[in-house]
């Protein structure tokens, strides 16, 4: 069957068009899986496109959804600004659009996600408390310019400002990548050696990379490592006491709520314009409840 959308097939079946930031990102894949599950449960047709991190592609995919006349669009934005035209176009075409996970500068019909600034704050506050407000910190950024990177940095730096005893001795982008961040950490161990007290990585992949480098250098027991996302690998590492903490971002709830909200909008049922799903700090104490 040609997938070309709403006018074909079952008259009553709602068609949802979704464009995802990148299906190579474990977190996004998790959100996506939950969306599919929910779509099946609610009996709606879900068309998923992968923007492969390109805002341009994302805009194009939304244009394509508009041409296909889908009933509602779910957008997992690549960029705050650059993905905005997608929202504008959908609204202009009178198709409701729901942002999931991160924001665009143009306000969509509804937003489901979490506040990345809060995640940055949470992680850095954990470090500050563990170090007693004094020590040398390293930050490994995500891909520069992406919303998650900008906001996680912002949150972390807010906390750093509160603790003048904490010194940010180095920061660099690990491009969300485990191998890259491992190399970075190896190099920092060369230049800063035992001077490093804590590492904050913008995601778990990079956190795990830094962790491995520290372990290889025999420094792990002296350095606190915290990252964000709570991917399976990271949860295992927290459980076994290798990783000090990760921040749980609830992919499942985000994905499910996004579809629910989208369907509500189409059915003209009442819906919340903004659903903020809180981050949760995961440490050795509470890790058990996050491991499936």
């Amino acid at each position, binding site marked *: 069957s*040609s*997938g*070309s959308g709403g006018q074909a097939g079952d008259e009553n079946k709602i068609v949802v068009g979704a464009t995802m930031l990148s*299906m190579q990102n474990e977190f996004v894949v998790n959100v996506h899986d939950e969306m599919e599950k929910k779509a099946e449960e609610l009996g709606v047709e879900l*068309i*998923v*496109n*992968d923007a*492969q991190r*390109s*805002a*341009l592609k994302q*805009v*194009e*995919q939304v*244009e*394509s959804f508009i*041409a*296909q006349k889908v009933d509602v669009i779910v957008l997992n934005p690549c*960029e*705050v*600004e*650059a*993905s*905005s*035209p997608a929202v504008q176009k959908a609204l202009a075409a009178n198709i409701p659009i729901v942002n999931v996970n991160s924001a665009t*500068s143009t306000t969509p019909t509804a937003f489901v996600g979490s506040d990345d600034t809060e995640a940055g704050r949470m992680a850095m506050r954990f470090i500050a408390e563990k170090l007693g407000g004094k020590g040398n910190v390293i930050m490994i950024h995500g*891909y*520069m*310019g*992406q919303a998650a990177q*900008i906001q996680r940095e912002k949150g972390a730096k807010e906390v750093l400002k509160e603790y003048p005893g904490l010194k940010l001795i180095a920061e660099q982008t690990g491009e969300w990548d485990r191998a890259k961040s491992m190399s970075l950490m190896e190099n920092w161990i060369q230049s800063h050696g035992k001077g490093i007290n804590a590492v904050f990585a913008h995601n778990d992949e990079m956190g795990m990379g830094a962790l491995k480098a520290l372990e290889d250098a025999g420094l792990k027991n002296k350095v606190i490592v915290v990252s964000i996302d709570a991917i399976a690998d990271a949860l295992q590492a927290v459980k076994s006491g290798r990783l000090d903490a990760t921040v749980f971002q609830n992919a499942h709830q985000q994905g499910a709520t996004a579809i629910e909200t989208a369907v509500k909008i189409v059915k003209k049922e009442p819906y919340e314009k903004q659903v903020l799903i809180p981050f949760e700090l995961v440490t050795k104490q509470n890790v058990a409840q996050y491991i499936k």
Partner: protein
Amino acid sequence: MLCIVLSVITPNFLTLTNISVIVKQVSINALLAFGVTFVIITGGIDLSLGSIVAVTGVVAASFAHPDTYPLLVPLAIGLLVGIAFGAFNGFIVTKAKVPSFIVTLGTMTIGRGLALILSKGRPVSNLSDSFNFIGGGSIAGIPLPIILLGVVFIICLLLLKKTTIGRYIYAIGGNEQAAKASGIDVNNIKLFVYTLSGALAALAGIVLASRITTGQPNIGAGFELTAIAAAVIGGTSTSGGVGSITGTLLGALLIGVISNSLDLLNVSSYYQQVIMGAIIIVAVSIDTISRKKGD
């Protein structure tokens, strides 16, 4: 041959709006591919395209905030940046005789860095409506990027097929020694070709920034490979001397149509990649084999 592949794949999707969507989507890649076609015909390569797209986008956007400068300023400055990059590539390739692969790999990295430095790593947004019109507006119902693509296509076509410069470009790629011995100023032509490629990348960068209403410092990574792929699928030989603008346009359309179709068919993005790769190999294989038979 490619035409056949295109028309076999396409029919289901040939609604008028969808064609316009596809062509619009293809326009950025086609602009880049036109430029790199010239470079490849001379026997070189240009890997800096994606970064030039990012830099020019960022720079143009910085001058395109509402109520600051007239529209001409961001356009002119953006183009100049692209031309400067292209000219730099051409200069090093011709003067220092460094392989174009290395030079443009270098400017690719430099360009990316500059885009990030100039934008401080943050997207440059809040652009004037007139600027955003370039990538988003239409004239007489035809989206502006499509019109632009058409104009550039015709200019490039004429330039390559009908002018002395075009003839010299083929000659250099076919046998540089012979071109030199025929009194052709090889260095100047090469300089021109890289500059043109840079200028077209700048144009693409401006259209792109306007289309997504932001100057994105990290956009465009990998664009160069897709552009080169379009050129090579369209029959341009990476060993130089052979190629055409029409072929490149068809190559770009093929890539665009495949990816659009797969999206429409709701093929999972993982399988999309496998299918896309396979179609490209198969299409070019059939093309090569049938051309050989004709020999």
